[in-house]
């Protein structure tokens, strides 16, 4: 008997994993999330850049650089949060909205922007219906849809780029719209200190924050993300919730797409290429997990900041583009690993 009991408590034997006490360090890491890395980067930045790092110019430049990724991330967070992995159609959503907006410039700036956003949002509606209602595999479906859209956009515009001022033609009204369109990405407030793109990104994050925490949609989404079946059997309209998540995702992507187009002054099918994985990286760095229902928007913003600061610091140190890929990859894997293990220790995974 006694030997048995000793063995039962001997190390290496599995104990019941449901803990009632919570590890303080795990909780700290979990709560602090991406901001822990932000703090580390801040210290590194202060040391290596001797004061230039915290200058207004540099902070603005970091924020400005991540603003497009940030806008798309604010939307993508909803999809990741709903346990649907990733929206692989993000690049084409951005390209489509930009190209539609440019195409509609002859009808005035309002029609152009609204039309562009509407076109992008439509992508989200289709994705949402197929994934939310019919439960298509999110990765494969959005990937397939991205290819189809890519084909359609290329065929429809004959594979060429379109320029706002060329599309506008000779009409004074349209030319003015084109100028306005191109100025979106070049509008600054407070004497050049605050770019419009950063403002829009922050507005989208605040909007996403409220959507996720202060509305019934956000709270339903949390339940849908954590346990779809349980949410369904609790009377949550899962299909509607997931559709809305995708719509918000493509809405944000569409806005990012319009700014992207305005920034390059070119509407092209290749706009937004690579944003699918780049944004997912930022969202995951921000503490969201593919299992859904975990993490929050504040964390995602932190993840976006990490991406921006990392690049900024690496360029400041003078690390080559090639080594930057490596560092980004390693940092990403380490952060995700820490995040996963702390989640497991907290009994959330």
């Amino acid at each position: 008997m006694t030997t048995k009991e000793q063995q039962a408590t001997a190390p290496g034997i599995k104990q019941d994993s449901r803990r009632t006490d919570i590890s303080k360090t795990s909780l700290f890491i979990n709560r602090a999330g991406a901001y822990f890395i932000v703090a580390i980067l801040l210290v590194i930045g202060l040391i290596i850049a001797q004061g230039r790092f915290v200058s207004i110019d540099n902070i603005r430049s970091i924020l400005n650089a991540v603003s497009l990724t940030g806008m798309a991330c604010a939307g993508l967070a909803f999809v990741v949060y709903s346990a649907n992995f990733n929206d692989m159609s993000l690049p084409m959503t951005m390209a489509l909205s930009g190209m539609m907006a440019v195409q509609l410039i002859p009808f005035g700036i309002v029609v152009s922007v609204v039309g562009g956003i509407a076109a992008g949002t439509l992508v989200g509606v289709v994705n949402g219906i197929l994934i939310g209602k019919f439960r298509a595999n999110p990765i494969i479906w959005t990937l397939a849809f991205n290819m189809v859209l890519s084909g359609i956009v290329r065929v429809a515009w004959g594979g060429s780029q379109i320029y706002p001022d060329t599309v506008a033609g000779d009409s004074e009204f349209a030319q003015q719209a084109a100028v306005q369109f191109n100025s979106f990405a070049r509008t600054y407030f407070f004497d050049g200190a605050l770019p419009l793109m950063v403002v829009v990104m922050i507005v989208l994050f605040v909007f996403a924050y409220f959507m996720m925490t202060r509305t019934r949609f956000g709270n339903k989404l949390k339940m849908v993300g954590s346990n779809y079946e349980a949410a369904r059997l609790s009377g949550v309209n899962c299909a509607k919730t997931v559709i809305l998540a995708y719509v918000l995702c493509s809405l944000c992507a569409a806005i990012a797409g319009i700014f992207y187009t305005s920034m390059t002054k070119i509407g092209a099918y290749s706009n937004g290429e690579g944003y699918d994985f780049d944004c997912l990286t930022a969202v995951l760095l921000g503490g969201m997990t593919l299992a859904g229902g975990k993490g929050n928007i504040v964390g995602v913003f932190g993840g976006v900041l990490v991406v921006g600061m990392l690049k900024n610091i690496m360029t400041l140190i003078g690390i080559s583009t090639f080594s930057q890929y490596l560092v980004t990859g390693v940092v990403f894997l380490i952060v995700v690993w820490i995040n996963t293990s702390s989640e497991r220790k907290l009994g959330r995974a």
Partner: protein
Amino acid sequence: MSEAVNTNENAYALEMRSVSKRFPGTLAVDQVDFAVRAGEVHALVGENGAGKSTLMKMLAGLYSDYTGEIYIDGKLCELHSPSLAKEHGVGMIFQELSLARRISIYENLLVGRLPKKNALFIDKKEAVRQASELLERVGLGKQDPTKEVSEISQCDAQLTEIAKVLGSNPSIIVMDEPTSALSSEEVKRLFAIIDSLKKQGLAIIYISHHLQEIFEVADNITVMRDGKKVGTYPVEETSTEHLIEKMVGKSVNEFYAEHTAEIGEELLTVKDFTRWGFFHHVDFTVHRGEVLAIVGLAGSGRTEIGRSLVGADPLDQGTVVLDGKEVSFKDMTQAVNGGIGYLTEDRKVAGLAITQSVTDNILVTIIDQLSKGASYYPKKHLGVVNKKIEELSIYPPEPARLVNNLSGGNQQKVLMAKWLATAVDVLVLDEPTRGVDIGAKQIIHQAVLDYAARGNGVILLSSDLPEVVGLCDRAIILREGYIVGEIQKHEINENTLLMAANGEGRHVS
């Protein structure tokens, strides 16, 4: 019992000596002695939560932290992993099928020990031959072993599961509710197989709620209750009534306080309720203040009725009248708004979002009611949550705690709280206290009775008979998808229920 063992003759194939297994909050198995001889079919009976399954899982090596001693063929064994248990000749047939559905039968049968032709390759011919042999032993000689499991019937899958266990040449076979998905003819086939196994000298442990079957197949019967062993009885010396008495014990009368319900007007009327292949032409009525139990064995269509009623599953025909209005729910959102709630049987898979907080889980059903327009912030409604936490004594009383960090009983309370928070008139409770300790059970039962007493209707779907007896005001008996009888309050006791569900005794219609 163990003192009586003579190790030379009459040796036990299996002997468990004062084994215990503790889960957080409960002692699932408490100092149990259990012994089986070779060539014996030993039935293990008891209520839900009596500890039968835990005892057997211990034997199958699923727990590494049990206490006590297990002897197999007289030798002390440490069954700390499934592969160790297998090595010692324990074969376990689980209640839920453990076959990989999209993989062929023969591979499922021989998983982990496919025969090899040489150092590299498996010998498919030999594997198929061995698989056919195994299938032959369970009477599936005509089945093609290269088919996928998903292509064969539920019954054949169940028999395949048995064949799979036979393949590892066990000396002890544990069957946990093997007949729940079988029709009566198929059950006969299974019994013939058990008989032949017995003759081959295997020790068979048979767990079932179907007492009728047990009398047909078993040699000895061990009864468990509340994690303790009540006693072992040779089959000739006992009877259904006797067993039920032993299973139920005296605690029932102490445990369930007598309650008298005020039955009001008709609340829910269901007519000609049919989902082909699940349940057919089901009619029943629930009144205000009434707890109606739908009693049936596993696979009788009990759960499916509940799910179809709230629109979680489709329905082929039938009308539902709720509070005088005819309703038909396409999904659970409509059902909850229309006034019916459904508490699911599997809290982890379909009941709770265990990675979220107690608050989120309790409020999920009433988000729409609490929100002003689109705006909704759960922290504003902590009052509602705290009230429910207090009402159901959820411990620890922290609304922000993750459900995963609660004990099973408290998780179940959260599940209950989430439905009690709603304003639905009718609540369908599917196994509301499965796998829950006594304390939590009592609290949940009281909550159910209080809920009904407020003029609501409850439909109780439970295989826990004392629970049914203690709670319900009327019971309808379901067998093979058809209603076969109805028992009024004054007639309800476990005896009548068990008999009715097993197809014995008087049918009231």
